[in-house]
């Protein structure tokens, strides 16, 4: 596989570049700057960095106020703590249409050894129901870096979901990142593998396995969860007749339900979900946890085979 890099590192690096380009960028953190990589920005631009302390509600409220004064605040914490400031995000940021960027690292199972209490598998659901919230979920270092720049240029609230652990680089650095645009990374006619974030690389691995068995997958990278690129996604699913939706997030309220909700009225198809079942995470290595909860290329391939295998189910009486 390609070189491994974490998307949180992309955030740290992108902020350094953004800080040099624009003086209206402010970075806020709730005392996790070493882990979220905002520490790198703090070291370079100490007067544009604010540690609000362990206080996520104030983090978001202050960010809304700073946006009202014309700044572009990046309010940063772990995905799990986003829920802690949900009402503030709802009222002060989304309802108030504040130009705030909320950046959440350690999404999904990535806070692995911290245990289930720290694993944020609900954040996409929380953010999706907020009107006007743009939700970005980049898959690798290159894409995450571009997503940070795109978020800064996009007027209005943005939620950016990032990972702790290094993942393979699967997108091309030259590929332009556009909010609201999904990318077809592999063409196929048998099954659509629709993936976001950390599991895109697993989807590509699964596609390679399936190809050896004669099953051709179309692999789609959904790096904007909202607004969803319904055209690209429904096109792939329509071509294949079935799709597997893959995310390191609860099966409830995330990409699976976003896709199902958007296309069910348009095209007849069969969809399967790879994500956290309706349960909390646990402790262990990230990869061990991914395997335990079925978030792996093996499971993706298995589900895809089942979908393809039952593409013409017998009519039951």
């Amino acid at each position, binding site marked *: 596989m390609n070189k491994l890099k974490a998307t949180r590192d992309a955030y740290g690096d992108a902020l350094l570049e953004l800080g040099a380009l624009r003086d209206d960028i402010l970075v806020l953190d709730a005392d996790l700057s070493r882990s979220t990589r905002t520490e790198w920005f703090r070291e370079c631009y100490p007067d544009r960095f604010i540690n609000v302390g362990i206080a996520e509600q*104030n983090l978001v*409220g202050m960010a809304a106020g*700073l946006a*009202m004064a014309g700044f572009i605040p990046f309010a940063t914490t772990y995905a799990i703590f986003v829920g802690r400031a949900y009402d503030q995000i709802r009222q002060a940021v989304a309802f108030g249409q504040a130009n705030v960027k909320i950046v959440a690292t350690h999404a999904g199972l990535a806070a692995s050894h911290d245990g289930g209490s720290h694993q944020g598998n609900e954040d996409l659901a929380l953010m999706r129901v907020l009107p006007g919230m743009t939700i970005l979920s980049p898959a690798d270092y290159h894409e995450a870096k571009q997503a940070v720049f795109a978020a800064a240029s996009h007027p209005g609230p943005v939620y950016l979901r990032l990972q702790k652990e290094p993942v393979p680089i699967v997108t091309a650095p030259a590929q332009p990142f556009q909010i609201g645009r999904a990318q077809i990374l592999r063409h196929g006619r048998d099954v659509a593998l629709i993936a976001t974030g950390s599991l895109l690389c697993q989807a590509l691995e699964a596609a390679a396995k399936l190809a050896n068995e004669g099953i051709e997958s179309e692999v789609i990278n959904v790096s904007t969860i909202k607004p969803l690129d319904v055209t690209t996604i429904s096109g792939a699913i329509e071509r294949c007749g079935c799709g597997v939706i893959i995310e390191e997030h609860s099966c409830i309220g995330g990409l699976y339900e976003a896709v199902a909700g958007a296309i069910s009225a348009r095209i007849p198809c069969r969809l399967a979900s790879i994500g956290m079942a309706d349960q909390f995470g646990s402790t262990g290595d990230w990869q061990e946890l991914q395997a335990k909860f079925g978030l792996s290329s093996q499971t993706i391939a298995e589900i895809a085979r089942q979908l393809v295998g039952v593409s013409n189910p017998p009519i039951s009486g």
Partner: protein
Amino acid sequence: MDDFNQNSLKTTACAIRRLIIESIYKAQTGHAGPSLSLVEVLTALYFRHLKLRPSDPDDPTRDRLILSKGHAAPVLYATLAQAGFFPVEWLDSLRKLGSPLQGHPNVGLVPGIEASTGSLGQGISISLGLAIGLRRRQLPSRVYCIVGDGELQEGQNWEAMMATAAFKVNNLTVIVDRNGLQNDGATETIMPLGDLSAKVESFGWNTVEINGHDFNQIDQALSAVKINDRPTMIIAHTIKGKGISFMEGIVKWHHHPISSEEYQHAMAELE
């Protein structure tokens, strides 16, 4: 403040009270009690202290007021209308379908409304971010945030108070509407605040306690904050429902429709 200025503010305050009663009566819904307790404070702010021009509500150099206790929207709407931010007739549409005047303030629809508030506890954080931002922009603007005493039960206020002191923000003033009542009863019975001044001062704030219906005391406190080098909390002791005899100090008037008879009585008292 001389008698002329004080009498002029009193006349304005009376007009604002009439607008509050009228708009809530016409809506048959709304928070009269927590609006009436703030009339003198808002009158002193909008007609004497805030640097604002109703003809240019987006002037970047303006002072900002954030009404964290957003349920008191009727007093803010009435004051803004009285000050000329929008036509007084808008008040007749309070809380009605299609009106810009929702039950709680929301930004973008009404000239003079700075923030969407009413989910309690958020105003100081927003004001703090705004105050820091304005100072970074080297603007002379000051930020005033009005919170209720019951609202201080929300923990976010305390996060924001600590941060305001830590970041040495002195262009932010918080005014507490200390009327002693909340939705379900007496604030000190439901969740005692204890010695609020001592608590807040221990974080590094200045505090001052005033009679929130006395224009001289309000005026002195608001003048003092402009020269303080620390953030100030003005604890304004007020009476919920102030100015309407049958509403004063009565819990139910936190949020209650006004009958036709009550409306007549109230307006007669405000002549």
